[in-house]
């Protein structure tokens, strides 16, 4: 079994995702980075599920895929809302409130 390779891939994807969330200023790219993190979680769960020969990890991954789809739906709707009002989706310019 190649457990450690899978886990390494998961860890690398997780780090890329977190880096993207912190550095990127475009709302859609931040959403994509979050998807990367969620997929790294799925890889982890599948690898562990194989290791333990236990099906609950795979069910967990299915739930994550389904919920992630719902989340992205809401996220894109919010981005669209901002685009309609501002003609711009840069997160830096979202600063109506201070203090």
């Amino acid at each position, binding site marked *: 079994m190649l457990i450690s390779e899978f*886990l390494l891939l*998961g860890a690398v994807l*997780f780090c890329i*995702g*977190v880096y993207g*969330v912190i550095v990127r200023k475009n*709302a859609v790219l*931040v959403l994509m980075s*979050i998807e990367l*993190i*969620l997929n*790294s*979680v799925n890889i*982890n*769960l599948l*690898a*562990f599920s*194989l*290791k*333990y*020969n*236990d*099906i*609950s*990890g*795979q*069910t*967990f991954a299915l*739930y*994550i895929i389904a*919920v992630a789809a*719902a*989340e992205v739906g*809401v*996220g894109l*709707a*919010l*981005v669209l*809302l*901002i685009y309609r*009002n*501002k003609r711009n989706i840069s*997160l830096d310019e*979202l*600063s*109506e*409130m201070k*203090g």
Partner: protein
Amino acid sequence: MLSTLLASDVVAPFSSPKIDYHALAPELVLAGVIVAVLLADLFLEESKKWVLSTIAGFGLLAAFIPIVTLAVSGHRARSMFGGAYVVDTYSLLVKGIFLLAGYVVVLLSQNYLEEGDYYQGEYYFLLLSSILGMVMMGSSRDLVTIFVSLEFLSIPAYMLAAWRKRDLKSNEAGTKYYLLGVFASAVMLYGMSLLYGDTGTTILKGIGAKLQNGSMSPVAVLGIVFVIIGFAFKVSAVPFHNWAPDTYQGAPTPITAFLSVASKAAGFVALINLIYVAFPHGGDVFQPMIGVMAASTMTLGNVMALRQTNIVRMLAYSSISQGGFILMPLAVAGGKSSGNALTAIVTYLAVYAATNLGLFAVIIAVSRKTRSGEVSSWGGLFSYAPLLGVLATAFLASLAGIPPLGGWVAKFGAFRAVITSGTNWGYALAIVGAVNSVIAFGYYGSLMREIWMKPVPDGDTAPIRTPSSLNAALMICGGATLALGVVPGIILRFSDIIKL
């Protein structure tokens, strides 16, 4: 294994899990009400949309009935789905808090929505969905169930925060809440996958049996840390609090009340489930972490609140600092004052819900007249709206922890929990908490001074008209705040009942 299952010729016959419908009744009733609201919205004319809030309100009260019948039918824990969903006295108590808080939020929303001309059907549909997620969270005892409940309660809340579609502030509130919330749940999921990897099970009880102080693998430690960080976002603990002030200020005021009370309480309930069932022997990892977060949350929330001029924003920071007080007992959970800590947190959640919702009801009532969120707009409130002035003072005093209002029982419980732990750590937290209770009086007191001593701005002393739903909300919250403070026995009795 799915692959081997599909390949094998002999597939084990599927046997459906045994379902205890009585235990699931609150969730089932709520689900029915959600569908009813959606269908009624489809067939009602625009002028009759007010019926929806009535359906939502009575639906929440109807869901409360099975909780009462479950509570009187014995204190036996009902466990379902292999231990993933447990209905016990603790979960009944927090479900009751969520349903009543939800009912008050419906009362607060009624006129706000009708006069603001917002989409009512969708609003109540999403609000009820979020409450259903919270009710499920009370019973979740499995990583998958916790994750699903968390998303169930969060996703509708993201949309509700951005409800005023054409207002840029509301858009910003929703987007910030969404991005940080989703990021936090992604980090939490990574932690959960590591916990699953270390223990080989997603059932919290199974995880709790495997994780022991001193013999934990680094993977498990990392898992616990990530999971707690994920929920720290939800309860807006410092340093993961940045979203809270902007979201609270930009969202519609009833939703701010909802987020700062119910959504935050749901985060704490999830933390309690995890810490008490999955990491009871992992105190070495989570105690220092939560202790530092509690101390910095109280302090930073208070210091920032002192310099705010917008009432809602001030209350946002006040709610962050109250979150620190609720975290404080969690920092000594797992030690010898575990039981005290659990009672303290649940008590604090109940009292805080009543008080904070009441204060938001006053804010909504006053801003119907002043149309302003500035602290100075509250000048001389007592002279032209004596009842609102007295109620606001009572709620502020309760938040500050002055007897005989509910707040002091909550604070007393929190301090008792950390001091009875008998560790230096607990004493240090108690001192930080005591200093912060004094600082907090600075801004609560300045609001009181506005109400009682300052002149009315522009000399406009026309009385405030409050609609009956708002009056009902004020009455419920005021009564609960006073009752919990005068007869603390109501709540202190819980300590005999709730055990995890």
